[in-house]
């Protein structure tokens, strides 16, 4: 439904997007993840036809956005980072205007129905007669979303749709976006990681204009986990490193935290081997007092930091994960699996 091929965008000498390629299938939600200034907005602006690419191309719903801009734009709804509202128009007037310029082929009556439907869908019908400029941030964002939906586009491009919202609004917006998938193909950008894990089927991680990974959020966390790690907490203060290292399949044991009431250990096992039962038995048999046992999975957050920072990340990240993911060649659309 959306195909981006070798897209490069340069502003003068600055390269904002560098040879980015990815595809989004019909009905999918793709999360575009990256730190600020990674090239997310530039990529989205090319997809929506706001500006042409320096090299490469973007095809939306079968139309090249550069050679057939009108056809592509008719099928694309776009919510920019700041909702493009006219402050002196009421919400209803504003949506009526956007319906006229985006779905002008519909009759006046049909456009009216569209406006009412979209207001209901985005839950802004209670502010229909208020001026856009006087709305709260959350409402502005929803009016922006309503505008993107007004012509019932096949493709939705949302630039940081939850930025600046309060937690309740964020949940509502995510639910709304999820409910739109299926009918619409969605690309959304964000620098908030849980958002991707909760809403998207596919993640593109981008840094300094380059794609560093393309995969599902689940696969990313799994693959990057590499050698599995376990966290074990015991009540006994005596050193359990020896006992734990003797369990079959264990590669390394480290003390993760030490308190008066308990000691926590990080156990690194051989890849693809579940050692939980053995570890539990060893702890119980050794009379150490098992308090907690859980697998340590790398959070998306850690993956993200690892992929987007050049230095080794600090903190309790399991060491093996660091070597797992090589940056993909920009043309390859799947994550290199170390």
């Amino acid at each position, binding site marked *: 439904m959306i195909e981006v091929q070798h897209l490069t*965008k340069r*502003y003068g000498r600055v390269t904002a997007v560098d040879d980015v390629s990815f595809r989004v299938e019909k009905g999918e939600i793709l999360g575009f993840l990256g730190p600020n200034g990674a090239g997310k907005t*530039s990529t989205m*602006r090319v997809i*929506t*036809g*706001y*500006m*042409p690419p320096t090299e490469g191309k973007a095809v939306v719903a079968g139309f090249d956005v550069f050679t057939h*801009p*009108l*056809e592509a*734009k*008719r099928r*694309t709804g*776009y919510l*920019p980072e*700041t909702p*493009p*509202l*006219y*402050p*002196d*128009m009421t919400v209803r*007037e504003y949506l009526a*205007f*956007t319906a*006229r*310029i*985006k779905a*002008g*082929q519909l009759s006046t009556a049909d456009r009216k129905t569209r406006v009412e439907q979209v207001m209901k869908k985005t839950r802004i019908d209670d502010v229909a007669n208020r001026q856009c400029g006087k709305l709260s941030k959350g409402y502005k964002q929803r009016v922006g979303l309503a*505008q993107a939906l007004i012509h019932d586009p096949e493709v939705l491009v949302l630039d940081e749709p939850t930025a600046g919202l309060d937690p309740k609004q964020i949940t509502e917006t995510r639910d709304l976006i999820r409910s739109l998938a299926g009918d619409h193909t969605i690309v959304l950008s964000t620098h908030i990681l849980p958002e991707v894990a909760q809403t998207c089927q596919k993640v593109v991680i981008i840094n300094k204009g380059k794609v560093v990974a393309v995969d599902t959020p689940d696969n990313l966390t799994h693959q990057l986990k590499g050698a599995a790690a376990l966290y074990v907490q015991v009540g006994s203060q005596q050193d359990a490193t020896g006992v734990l290292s003797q369990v079959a399949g264990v590669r390394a044991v480290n003390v993760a935290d030490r308190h008066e009431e308990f000691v926590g250990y990080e156990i690194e096992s051989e890849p693809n081997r579940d050692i939980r039962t053995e570890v539990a038995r060893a702890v119980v048999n050794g009379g150490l007092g098992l308090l907690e046992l859980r697998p340590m999975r790398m959070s998306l957050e850690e993956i993200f930091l690892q992929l987007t920072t050049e230095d080794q990340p600090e903190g309790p990240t399991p060491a093996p994960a660091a070597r797992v993911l090589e940056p993909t060649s920009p043309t390859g659309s799947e994550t290199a699996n170390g």
Partner: protein
Amino acid sequence: MGSSLRNISAIAGKELRSFYSSPIAWVMLGLFALIFGYFFDAAITYFAKASMAGQMGGGPQKVNVNLEMIRPLLSNTTVLILFLLPMVTMRTYSEEKRSGTIELLLTSPLKDVEIILGKFLGAMGMYLGLLAVTAVYMLIVFKYGNPAVKPLLSGYLGLLLFGGGFVAVGLFISTLTSNQMVAGAASFVVFLLFWIISWLGESLGQTMASIMSYLSITEHFDDFGKGIIDTKHIVFYLSFIALGLFLATKSVDSDRWRG
């Protein structure tokens, strides 16, 4: 073609509504009415004196209301327009750039030229509002005098074309910046330049003088005030408008490339 007209009228309608719902528009119309009223009063007083002098045998026997009153009044209007039109055109495009709403327009299925034409017609609608104010005063002249209609109409045609040229150039300048104050100031300077360009020519010899006076936007207005509709002048103003709109459309496109 049909869809183009629809898009243009959608943009023009939006421009008009947002202009007339802003207080600036009404302050501007009010000030314009006030100053024009002052000009009108001065013109009437002058005309009354002249005709009185004529009756007492101290001046020309017949005074013409069109030539002695309406014509100077219309050229005074062009001075007011010089000051007021930058205020109309400065926000047309700059404001969209500043607030980010240009992203809506440029990602909607609209052609650049549709956006520009819509904005041009919208601004012309605002300008017509200003001209409508002067028409009220003209009605007073008709009530108490008997001016000829044709020179008056040709005068208004001239004003329309004259203002159209300014609006098109002002719109072009507005596409160049996201700061409406800069757009307003720059438009005023450019308008003024076209106004005084003929003065410059006089010291530059015969050929330059005639070129400069051809470029002067005011020289072409004179005949309209006299009731003469000359194709030469219409062509001048129409090319002026077309050039402004062409540059504005190109500017939108080049802005897109620069990102």
